[in-house]
């Protein structure tokens, strides 16, 4: 177990390195002088010249990559062309919004997905199960951003129940904050909840067929106990992997959700930065989100071995 944890931690390093490589390579695909791209086309020639020397843009590409990488590792993501602030500062300012949105969306998704997935598996091949299958495939097919717009039309424009845009931190005013976050969270949770629900159903079905389940039922244990204690714990490990993966998609989807609902998070920061060709921000946000996704999956893998200790990890 201990060696597995260490091995898994070491595995993350080359992945992070490659992710950084992909982001570096991507930004070099932008046509034009890389130094000018880095400080903006309106920058003074002297500034462009100094950044060219500082970032080694006059040197071979691998030197450039190493210089760039060492800056990134030190948390130096450069300065925003538009805001004239350090990128890392801008990101940290907006991170709480995106994390709150992501966390609440995942809570929403799980509250819908896990009970409905269990319900469907326990009632396999009944109308409840068919209804579940239908709703799940609809949940996977309906675009979250369309659902968001539809909810704004009905709940904000027509009924006036929820605000269409804006953000209040739930840490300052809990109820008011939640009021602003309900629609964004539901729209962002849709896809994840459908995928997690399907996974919950299929892993539950597999577990319910196992012999120890028959034994548990044969002992006359109450159904709720059998499903909750014996089945769910064993079905949870594979579901957990999907949850980790969906958390990443929720983080990525924040770009769309935050744009629709005008939430001042990382997603909106990327979106406006793309419009303003503020590439240091784009680079910093993508890099940090991808790193976050890798860390989430790492945690999920480690939790997996906790939930399912039978798993033997080889070489």
């Amino acid at each position: 177990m201990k060696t597995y944890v260490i091995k898994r931690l070491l595995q993350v390093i080359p992945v992070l390195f490659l992710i950084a490589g992909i982001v570096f390579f991507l930004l070099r695909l932008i046509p034009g002088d890389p130094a000018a791209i880095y400080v903006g086309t309106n920058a003074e020639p002297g500034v462009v010249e100094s950044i060219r020397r500082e970032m080694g843009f006059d040197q071979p590409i691998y030197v450039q990559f190493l210089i760039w990488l060492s800056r990134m590792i030190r948390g130096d993501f450069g300065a925003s062309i538009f805001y004239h602030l350090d990128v890392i500062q801008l990101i940290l300012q907006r991170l709480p919004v995106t994390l709150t949105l992501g966390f609440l969306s995942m809570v929403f998704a799980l509250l819908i997905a896990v009970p409905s997935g269990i319900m469907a598996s326990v009632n396999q091949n009944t109308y409840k199960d068919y209804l579940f299958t239908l709703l799940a495939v609809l949940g996977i097919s309906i675009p979250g951003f369309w659902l968001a717009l539809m909810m704004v039309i009905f709940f904000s424009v027509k009924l006036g129940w929820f605000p269409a845009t804006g953000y209040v931190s739930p840490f300052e005013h809990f109820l008011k904050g939640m009021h602003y976050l309900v629609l964004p969270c539901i729209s962002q949770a849709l896809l994840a909840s459908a995928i997690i629900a399907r996974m919950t159903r299929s892993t539950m079905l597999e577990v319910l067929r196992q012999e120890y389940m028959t034994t548990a039922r044969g002992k006359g244990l109450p159904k709720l106990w059998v499903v909750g204690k014996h089945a769910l714990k064993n079905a949870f490990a594979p579901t957990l992997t999907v949850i980790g993966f969906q958390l990443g998609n929720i983080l990525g989807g924040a770009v769309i959700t935050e744009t629709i609902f005008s939430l001042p998070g990382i997603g909106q920061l990327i979106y406006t930065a793309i419009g303003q060709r503020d590439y240091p921000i784009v680079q910093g946000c993508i890099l940090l989100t991808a790193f976050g996704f890798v860390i989430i999956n790492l945690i999920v893998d480690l939790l997996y071995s906790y939930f399912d200790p039978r798993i033997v990890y080889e070489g």
Partner: protein
Amino acid sequence: MFLRRLIRNKLAVLGAVLLLFLVTMAVLAPWVATHNPFKLNIKERFLPPSSSHFFGTDGYGRDLFSRVVYGAAIALRVGFLSIIVAMTVGILLGLISGYYRGWIDTIIMRIMDAILSFPIILLAIGIMAVLGAGFANLMIALGAVYTPRFARLVRSSVLSIREKEYIEAARVTGCSDVHILFVHILPNCWAPVIIQATISFGYAILWEAALSFLGLGAPPPSPSWGSLLADGKEVLNRAPWLTYFPGAAIALAVLSLNLFGDGLRDVLDPRFKE
């Protein structure tokens, strides 16, 4: 045998029928559309749905029904071609990785892992931000995002197939690696690839719409469903129908491919049989 089992799967048939409907609509767009989808008509701005404009008109008086019909062609073409890109590159990389193993396998698969480490939409957004809006760039971005999925699938099939005796026999009789890979190994990898392609096709349509919605996908004034939704978003309280129909079209397209893909999986891959 295969077809008969597929036909017995009602949801798969429903998916196939919906898909066929969309493909027909896309191919026959010039005849199905009631108006020119690009023609501006300021006198007929923001008309609600009626018998002359089935889905109403937008802020420039363009007929929404005709735009949605033309949008089907964009969605299906971009989705299909990006999956073809992903499949071609992914299959080649997977074959090389699984057959030759060793350092080349390590390099290819680590890069694939790194691409998979990005949330899909975020990587696609990053690529589009750098390359700029446009159809060719959309196919590159979505193709790149989905390549690792195919590479991994093919690689794992190749790993088991290459140990089979008939591969050994082919090698002994002097077949070249290329011949073995494409004639003896590839035909045995198709089932999972086809399933993955069908489901990814649906998602590619979804992501194309999302990127176009953000203004990073299809260039204006092309009536991509995502761009139509972006236009509708600006006038939610004045002309909500501009949001209803394009979104429903996206959902229908993705639904058809998901249903069909699920059905294919049940029939082609007995491991998933419940």
